[in-house]
Each structure stands twice: as C-alpha cells, then as structure tokens.
C-alpha cells in the first residue's frame, strides 16, 4: 500500500528568495537553515511524489470562476516561470506534475462527495516556487497540488479544509501501490498583503498556531473563523487552511518547528515545520 513518508509545512513569500539581503542576516540564516534541514529530511524520506496543499493568489482563478478546492492535473508546473524567476531571484524551471495521480484523487473525491474542481494548466507563483527551490532543488520528485481558495473570500472553512485533507490522507493510504508520498503545505503564517496594514506581522498569532501544530491540537485551528484569522493573522494568515488540510491527512502527527522568524522585510511570519508521526 502507498505510504505517507513525510509531512512538512512552510511559509511562502516571494521576498524570501527575492530580497534575501534586506532581512536581518541571523533571521534569514535561521529560516534558511530550517529549509535546509527540511530538505535533508525530505531527501532521506525518498518520496516518489509530493502532494502539495497550496493556494492561488488570483494568478489563475479569476472572479468569474473561483474554485474552493482545485486539483492540478498539469503535466508540469513553472516553478517559477521566467518572469517569476526574475522577481524571486531563483532559477526558472519546470517541475513535473502527476496528472494520473491527480485524476485518481479527483475521481475518488467526486465519488465520496468532495466536489473538487480541476485544472490542466496552472501558473504557479511563490506557493510552489519558493518552498520547492529549497526542498527539491534537483526537481526530480513530481508534484500533485491541491489548491484551496485562501485569497478570494468567501473561503472554505478551516473545518472543511481539514476534512478535505483527511480525505486526501485516506485516499493515499488506500492506494494499492507502493508509492512513498510526502505532504507539503505552504503559506502563512501571519501577514497582511495589499491591505492598508501591509507589512504587519503578528508573532503572537503565529506562535499560537505553531503551538497547536506542535501538540496536534487541531480543534482550535478548525474552529477559527474567517474574521478571527483576518483580525489576528491578516489576509495572508488565511493560508493556514493549507496547514490545516495537511494536518487532516496525518491525524495525531505533531509539528516540530525548525525555525520561526517574523521577518518584517519579507512582510511574513515565516516558519519551517517538520510533522512527525
């Protein structure tokens, strides 16, 4: 049977790689160190596939057609595209997708009452590019992204995200294959982007989220309302839905926070977390 061999959660922000020189060097080094340790552990876990819980930033899904949950069925993803590479200052590359795997998840979901949307072409941004730059620099592991609407309210509830993640976990474990699957959630923690409070970070909220993740204490997270997250974590904090989905896939697993840095210059409370059985 297929197996979940690793689970990781990290922040994503274009400035993490795009403006490394503006952060305090010790903050940058601690966060990069967290990414490097995740890379080491992920490599040791030898995954055949990385399932990503991520979100669009209205690059792909427009207000004329906004999916709550969308499975990527692309053959490959720009991570980043040449344009994104210039801004994020990382090499442009194509990361292989896993469309057959995604289709199996899609069909299984529809049969079970999880009405995923799907897309054969997704222009990825920092949600894939920045974490994968650190975690699979060789780019050899195919990826299957599950996109959740974290950016264009109204959003799916954290509880529903948890249920979707739980379904994905069950789907993986029921596969009659010997796949070794890694899970990666990206986004958050607190940040205010494009709002009048742009640049604000709330370390107190971030530490609260990380504390719940460390104790596998999921209920307070799934109970959070959109308004509570917006107030305490900003519009970027809504991306913790991706983390909640991942935790749904690995019930009882506990997060080990390798690094947390509220980096004002990157306008993001940045974390790297390894999630243990």
């Amino acid at each position, binding site marked *: 049977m297929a197996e979940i061999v690793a689970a990781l959660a990290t922040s994503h922000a274009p400035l993490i790689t795009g403006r490394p020189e503006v952060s305090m060097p010790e903050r940058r080094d601690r966060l990069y160190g967290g990414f490097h340790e995740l890379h080491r552990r992920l490599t040791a876990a030898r995954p055949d596939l990385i399932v990503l819980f991520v979100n669009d*930033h*209205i690059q792909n899904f*427009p*207000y004329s057609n906004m999916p709550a949950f969308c499975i990527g069925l692309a053959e490959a993803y720009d991570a980043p595209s040449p344009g994104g590479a210039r801004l994020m200052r990382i090499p442009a590359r194509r990361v292989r997708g896993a469309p057959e795997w995604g289709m199996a998840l899609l069909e299984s979901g529809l049969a079970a009452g999880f009405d995923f949307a799907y897309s054969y072409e997704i222009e990825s941004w920092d949600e894939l590019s920045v974490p994968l730059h650190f975690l699979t620099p060789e780019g050899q592991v195919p990826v299957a992204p599950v996109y959740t609407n974290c*950016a264009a*309210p109204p959003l799916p509830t954290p509880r529903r995200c948890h249920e979707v993640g739980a379904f994905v976990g069950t789907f993986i474990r029921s596969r009659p294959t010997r796949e070794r699957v890694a899970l990666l959630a990206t986004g958050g923690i607190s940040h205010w*982007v*494009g*709002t009048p409070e742009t640049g604000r970070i709330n370390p107190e909220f971030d530490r609260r989220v990380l504390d719940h993740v460390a104790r596998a204490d999921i209920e307070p997270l799934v109970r959070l309302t959109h308004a509570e997250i917006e107030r305490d974590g900003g519009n970027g904090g809504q991306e913790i839905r991706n983390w909640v989905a991942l935790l749904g896939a690995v019930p009882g697993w506990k997060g080990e926070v390798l690094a947390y840095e509220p980096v004002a210059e990157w306008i993001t409370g940045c974390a790297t977390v390894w999630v243990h059985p």
Partner: protein
Amino acid sequence: MSGTSYALNKILTTVARQHVMKDALSDDDLAGHDLNDEERAALKAGDITRLYHLGANPYLIRRVFRSRFPI
C-alpha cells in the same frame, strides 16, 4: 473590506495579467470596463487604500500597484 467589487477585481485581473506595474491606471486601461465614478477615481489615482475599501482584492491591488507600497 466592506464587500467585493467584481468590476474592480475584473479590471485589476486584466491589468495584472499584462505583467506591468502601474502607479495609476489611464483612461485607456479603463476603457470598456463598467465602473462607477468612485471606482474610476480610485483607479486613476492609484489610491490603494481607497481601492481596498471599495472592495478590490488586496492581492490584486498589490500586484498592479506594487510601486505604491512602501514595503
């Protein structure tokens, strides 16, 4: 945010997909879009705070008017 303005988000999505950052939108940018006076004024002024309160999505505001943000 008091609500979502589809008209604002539609035009900002169109401009964002041109991958060009703007300080303000021009009459040419606005041509063909169904916007009210307040929305037109905020777009032409590049007033990022006003746009937010009029219901533009903050990610789109940031992408189009990146140069307006101090950080």
